């Protein structure tokens, strides 16, 4: 579960075209990193995968994305987003909710009211997000009382609680310090046995460290997608080579 197949995807912001004919296979239970310079369309790309891009006024998409063989455009985005979770660049817990309420927010939206089930799901998600040991004795504290790195892991737990099959991460560590970043990276590596992970990063070393596959985007085009080791050691495209050797970007 969690195979993504992108077919000739194009995306616009109003009249401005941001993605050009993207075709890509994102295999299940692997980490696919999206790299590229600022403005290359990498965020736009993953925001298409859960149809978050569609929510912007004037945004437009063409082409198709298949999730396990079925077009994501055939179902309502509200249901799609329960299968395709997302973690954002800046930690964004709901400030009016406690740690516990943050984690179960998605389940409550799904109509789950059973106290025991919510408790159990919260613990499971917090454990998966490697946050349980730090917060289990203060679950009723505000989500924003945590440090930045903890908040981001809380947001990961919140996304996991809905039990998606795909987890999209839009530069999840870019607002964090090196130690918190390392924890997030360990977490992401541990999560891939259960989830398909697509992670945008502006940090090439991060992609090299954690990703099975790496996709290089430039000016809204997918230049190259392949096993991370190949992309970083023997890229097929000259532009990829220039980018990873630091000649631009």
């Amino acid at each position, binding site marked *: 579960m969690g195979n993504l197949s992108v077919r000739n995807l194009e995306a616009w912001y109003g009249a401005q075209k941001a993605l050009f004919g993207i075709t890509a296979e994102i295999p299940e239970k692997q980490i696919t990193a999206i790299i590229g310079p600022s403005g290359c369309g990498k965020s736009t790309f993953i925001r298409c995968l*859960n149809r*978050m891009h569609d*929510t912007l*006024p004037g945004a437009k998409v063409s082409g198709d994305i298949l999730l396990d063989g079925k077009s994501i455009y055939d179902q309502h985005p*509200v*249901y799609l*987003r*329960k299968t395709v*979770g*997302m973690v*954002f660049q*800046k930690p*964004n*817990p*709901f*400030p*009016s*909710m*406690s*740690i516990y*309420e943050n984690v179960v*927010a*998605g389940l409550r*939206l*799904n109509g789950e009211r059973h106290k025991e089930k919510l408790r159990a799901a919260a613990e499971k998600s917090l454990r998966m997000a490697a946050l349980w040991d730090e917060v289990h004795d*203060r679950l*009723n*504290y*505000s*989500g*924003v*009382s945590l440090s930045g790195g903890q908040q981001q892991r809380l*947001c990961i737990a*919140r*996304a996991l609680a*809905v039990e998606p099959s795909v987890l999209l991460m839009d530069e999840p560590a870019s607002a964090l310090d090196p130690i918190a970043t390392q924890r997030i990276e360990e977490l992401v590596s541990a999560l891939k046995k259960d989830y398909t992970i697509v992670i945008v990063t502006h940090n090439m070393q991060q992609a090299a460290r954690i990703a099975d596959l790496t996709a290089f985007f430039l000016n809204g085009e997918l230049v190259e997608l392949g096993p991370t080791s190949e992309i970083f050691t023997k890229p097929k495209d000259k532009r990829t080579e220039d980018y990873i050797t630091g000649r631009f970007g």
Partner: protein
Amino acid sequence: MKKKKPRASWGDRILRSASGLTAVLVVGIMIWMGWEMFISSRQSLHQFGWAFLGGRVWDPVHRIFGALPFIYGTLVTSLVALVIAGPIGLGVAIFLSEMAPATVRSVVGFLVELLAAIPSVVLGLWGIFVLAPFLGKVVEPWLGKRLGFIPLFHGAPVGVDLLNGGLILAIMILPTIASISREVMTAVPTVQREAALALGATKWEMIRIGVLSYAKSGIIGSVILGLGRALGETMAVTMVIGNMPNISPSLFSTAYSMAAVIANEFTEATYGLYLSALMEIGLILFAITLLLNIFARLLVWSVARGPKGGHLV
């Protein structure tokens, strides 16, 4: 080498004293006014004591004064205004900040704020000549026929009554509630909305957990500001409330408000005790407004602080 004092420190010092002075001035004026009202109402305070608050009779001819009908009129009209303008104002704010396309947003937003620019005396005129006949001939008979078993809607429909006063106040405080709520909702970071959407929230669920809960202290604040305006509003209410010191459970009854009685009667207050009683009404209005604001502030604190370790947003 002789050390020269940096020139900037003078500027800072002047700024500090000047801004400090303005702050002291505001507080000072408030205390002074309270004190003056207290002094002027001493005669009435002495004569009636606490019974003034519970007194139902207002009879200048026999020198008997009680404030209860006015307190009642003020509170009921303000409450009616809040009950009507609160949900509508919030609805307008949600529509403008979350639903409306940009062009509609600016046009409607402007019109809502324009509503606040209508002078209260004009609203009062409208209340007398348009709203009162409409209420008296259409709305109140209809309500009385269907809901007349509730004391609230019992009695002869006149149109010049508590309901009219409440409605006029609702119109007056609607722009306050709508535009401030819209401001605080627009200020909610987009990542909050996206956090909700990414969990599979529908539009309404997104507004509820991503926007309203984030903005709730500001929304409560807007309602409190509206309430403050409703409590003190004089002209429009005086014109439509009937100006009779009644206490009736029915919204179809004529009534009187604190601000209205002061405005209407201070020129006729021919003897000391009369004037003193009016001053005491002013003092009570002042106290009620103050208490409500303190209560509201406490409410905002307790609601907005949310779970432990959180912060005001």
